[in-house]
């Protein structure tokens, strides 16, 4: 899966002259946490996050009641946003896992997807929510089916065994994932989601595979 396949296209964009209060309203109303700021031709200028909207209490404490209202009225998006050179971007051709890596490394909640990093025209946004949606899709949600986990030895040819058994039964797999088992370096866990079949049948057939252990089976995820 590439960024192109999981990003949100046509995100809500704002211009730098928008009052900060208005940006705050849009974020609250639409339940979003990131607002890319763009200029002419959707060129990235910055990013407004929930943190950008948090004004230091000291700043306000030094102002009297009348100054506060003026201070807030002149507060535009441009003054609070994270500037473009500090916004981390990605192009649509990168992979989803790479995007996730960048986000965990920088401890950030979103990546702005641009056409080209030298010429940052915004084509979309990739947030934690998008990646969580992609994660669900990879494991076959929301389609109904049997979700089964097999613990297999870490060697070549183990997945082929599963695949051939499933193929022999004529089942369809709609979601698949594999990851190293916790604290067992010589084992891998394989998760499959199989449709249009009952759990008993799946259990019966997959238990027959030599060297592999069926550790979990369920229909309700």
């Amino acid at each position, binding site marked *: 899966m590439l960024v192109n396949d999981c990003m*949100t*296209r*046509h*995100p*809500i*964009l*704002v*211009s730098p*002259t928008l009052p900060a209060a*208005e940006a705050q309203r*849009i974020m609250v*109303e*639409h*339940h*979003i946490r990131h607002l890319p700021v*763009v200029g*002419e*031709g*959707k*060129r990235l200028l910055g990013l407004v996050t929930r943190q950008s909207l948090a004004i230091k209490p000291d700043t306000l404490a030094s102002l009297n009641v009348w100054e506060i209202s003026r201070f807030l009225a002149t507060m535009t998006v441009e003054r609070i946003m994270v500037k473009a050179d500090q916004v981390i971007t990605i192009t649509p051709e990168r992979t989803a896992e790479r995007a996730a890596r960048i986000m965990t490394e920088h401890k950030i909640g979103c990546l702005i997807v641009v056409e080209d990093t030298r*010429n940052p*025209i915004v*084509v979309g946004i990739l947030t934690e*929510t*998008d990646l969580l*949606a992609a994660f669900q899709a990879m494991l076959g*949600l*929301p*389609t*109904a*089916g*049997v979700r089964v986990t097999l613990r297999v030895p870490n060697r070549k040819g183990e997945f082929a065994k599963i695949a051939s058994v499933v193929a022999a039964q004529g089942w369809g797999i709609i979601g698949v994932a594999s990851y190293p088992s916790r604290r067992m370096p010589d084992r891998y866990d394989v998760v499959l989601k199989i*449709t*249009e*079949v*009952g*759990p*008993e*049948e799946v259990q019966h057939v997959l238990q027959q595979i030599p060297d592999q252990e069926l550790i979990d089976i369920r*229909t*309700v*995820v």
Partner: protein
Amino acid sequence: MQAPIADPIQVNRASISGPGPVLKVDNLAVAYKVRGGEIEAVHEASFEIYRGESHGIVGESGCGKSTVAWAIVNFLGPNGYVKRGSITFLGQELVGKSEEELRQLRGDQIAMVFQDPMQALNPSLRIGDQMAEVLTVHRGISREEAEARCLHMLERVYMPDPANVLRRYPHQLSGGQQQRVVIAMALLNNPALLIMDEPTTALDVTVEAAVLDLIAELQRDFDTAIMFITHNLGVVARVCDKVGVMYAGEMVERGTVEEIFSRPRHPYTQGLLRCVPRLGMNKAESILYPIRGRVPPPNARPFGCVFAPRCDYARERCLQEKPRLRPVSAGVGESVSEVRCHFAEEIDPDQWRPPLDLELPIAATPPAVSSNTGEPLLRIEGLRKYYRVQGNALRDVLGLGAKRYVKAVEDVSLSVPKGITLGIVGESGCGKTTLVKTIIGLEEPSAGKMHFLGFDITNGINKRDVRLIQEMQMVFQNPDATMNPTYTVGQQIARPMLRFKTVPKHRVREEVIRLLKAMRLDASYYDRLPRQLSGGEKQRVGIARALASRPDLILCDEPVSALDVSVQAAILNLLLEVQRQFGTTLIFIAHDLSVVRFFSDYVAVMYLGQMMEIGPAEAIYAPPYHPYTEALLSAVPIPDPKAQQKRIRLEGTVPSALNPPGGCRFHTRCPRRHLLPDGGRVCETETPPWRDAGHGHRIFCHLPLEVLRTLDPVLTTPSHEA
């Protein structure tokens, strides 16, 4: 096998596909200031469009569909303004913002595609320059880079020979290609919302099908929200996810496309669906039910429900109280439709019976077979019509160059028995209109013989006897262009009566009024001028005028294609009634195959001046058919989202009639050529034979009938299988 347990987690589209709708129109009212007040063109429209969704807006003309679109892009003109309500685009309010704020807000995020692509293209600039401008001006992309992107985009919209197209001017492209350029241009900036206002109405059915496929594909790839305005219910069924039905400036019903078509709630939606002929319907078995009355003008809308005066279910409450757009439970699934009707739950469309005062034709009896044995009313043999083309080179001007001809009609032979309807279909430029014009005598044939009532009519109209002229009349597509704007309706209808002396002078007025009544227009229309009539009424006058001389044969050149569906149904019914009453023979040209199927006894399919197939209507619409007919049928938009249609798309455009392909004229685009041995080499060199499939059904193709019979039917509807 045990059934799997249903997954309790339901998809919540909104939570997965990102925040909020792209466009939200809420309770919108748009008014135009005119002398002495203002006109509220849109009274109450509400809908929202999410990412990657296409939302259809349907309704008759004058219902305010386009006004809504114009309000969104602030294109209302100096006298129009948004009176109430809000338009939210990507979270920000558009109403009440200044021009500059709007430009910044919308930027290049909303694109629009209109019905006529030439309106959007600059005729004096090359396609490449126009397209590159979008990128170089808005985005500051370098010229080379911009051109590369334009080329790529033209490839995405399946433009044949895109590099070459960039160097051409708009007029050097066909209508379908122009519309592709406009769509490509609209997508260059990757807009969040694409507004399409009747984008395929001006295109041929085959081109339309290709453009609709393209729209569906682009919507998927670019995740663009599409607002699709159209009057064609078939098109909506093909491309839209959701539909809003508008009537007299109000959204009267809204729901998913399946809901609207399978269970229309509002009487207006039900009425609309009853007026369109479905492919496969014919006049002997089914009746079209027009909606009585007409759309009220914006300044004379009824107080209660706007549809009440035309509604069969209207009660006291409908006149007193304005219904609100309220949700009705769909029963199955989670799809919720909204309807603006007090009694939506009580109305069952299956229980509907036409009201007694609705004028309906008595189901037409199929033409008696015995009448076919006699002398046909009209017989044409080997008719050709060539137009000499003057080249621009000096030798052509001096008359030394080779003579070149546009072969508009090539070798057409047919005979029309008395009292039947012959439908002629084909793409534009296939010679339908030329054929009809030659028959009536407006064009002189280049070769061939024509006999009408046993008289030779091969010569031009000035050599025909007045009484022969009287027996053949014509109804035109555009009633505006064929009526003298300074003469009253009465004078125009009386004119043929006086000219042909069919009625004594002192009784002309009486006769005109009788005809008007037959057209369901009352005597007050006698003194009206054409500009005081609506489109449907003008067409009625056109038919009355054609009938005034009591002709034996009426040639109808696309009589209903410019009209709304409900009016179209009324005009078709009227023509049927005329035919039944006067025994008139009709030649009926239309590009809408469902209408032709409904209306005609015999159908002729033309391609590039050549007759491809002719036969009884029901035979044309089922195998065996000519590969061209098959392609036409697969392109017809069916007003039923469940219908399964075979997908055959013709490649390329109709070749020039100046230099038509040799052999079979269709061979350059024929999708079935490979069925012949040697890849259909024979199609390029030899003129195909006429193959007789019985009952007067003839097919002009090299493929033997046995092969043509094995082709699957184009259309299968679930109801057919049941």
